[in-house]
């Protein structure tokens, strides 16, 4: 299987698992971990696309909240120094990706003319 069909297959599997997680989480899990969501249903449809994309994170947070193992205080701490470094690193990485991407870009090989290798039958 070449890269393109592999990518399509990966996205299909990812989306399929995400759909399962979305069904399970929105039909059952969200009521267990968020009391404000109980009795509210329309908004659940809106977050299906997000769950399809980041379902591993949803599962992880769901497990944290179920097990009460998450450090809830950490959610209210100001942006940490590591975040600043990560933001800087990402900015530099984006600039480098653009630079190397443009450097690796091919030029249209206009000077290579078609050549008949063998005559037709």
């Amino acid at each position: 299987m070449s890269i393109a069909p592999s990518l399509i297959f990966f996205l299909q599997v990812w989306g399929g698992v995400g759909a399962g997680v979305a069904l399970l989480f929105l039909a059952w899990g969200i009521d267990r971990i968020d009391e404000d969501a109980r009795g509210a249903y329309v908004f659940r449809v809106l977050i299906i696309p997000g769950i399809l994309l980041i379902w591993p994170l949803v599962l992880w947070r769901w497990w944290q909240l179920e097990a009460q193992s998450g450090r809830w205080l950490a959610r209210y701490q100001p942006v940490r120094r590591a975040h600043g470094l990560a933001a800087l690193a990402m900015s530099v990485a984006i600039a480098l990706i653009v630079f190397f991407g443009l450097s690796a870009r091919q030029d249209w090989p206009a000077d290579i003319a078609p050549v008949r290798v063998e005559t037709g039958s």
Partner: protein
Amino acid sequence: MSDKPFFVGYLPAPGGLRGCLVLAGALLMLGMAAAGFALGVAQDDPGEGAFRFDYGRQTVTGVVELTPYPLIHVTEGNDRIKAGETFMMSAGGKSGVDGRAAPLAGQVAQVSGVMLERGDLYMLQLRGGRNGIRAAEGSGAVPEPQDLGRWRLAGEICDGKCLSGAMRPGRGLAHKACANLCLLGDVPPVFVSTQPVEGSEFLLITGPDGTALPEAAYDYVAQYVTVEGQVRRHGSLLVFAMDPDTLALAP
């Protein structure tokens, strides 16, 4: 309490910060404008390919040939598409018409849809179901292909629909993912040659011996490549049966 000026969005800007804010604002606007201009001028010209809705719906009759990508050899044309011409077809979106055309192989069929046109290259996006293609009365036969020999070409493998005008740009690296999705959907692939081959710079590209585009070619779509293969003239269209073992990035 600190005397340092503090900016609050809904209050007038403090005197000590105004100069800095004006300067930062001006630099931000100029920087964004300059970045937009730089990105714009760095892009290749997408060309003049487009859907030709202004031509209206095109309906012609011809003989269906599978290369394996379906072609129509026109027997009864109209003002735009003349009898004797040969063209490719696609369905709406990123889909080909293989399933609908296969039962009509070698038979006379009426096809109807909207044209996509880029220079000498054009394609018909068929209407849905039997409104797009159906068996028709009349006679005709698939013209005998003319073998033009084995060629070494340089250029780019594209999906024929986007290249013809469904997308702008319809080729190049920025379009690679779209092109591969179209090709996976059985849209006919087209090879754009650096220079005309027997008068045409666009060739329908297939695998060897009447097979579809080889899987190996998908990784090279939208990049500039050199490749060898057999060129045959099917009606007015050139068909390039590529040899995947010779596929390489252009130097």
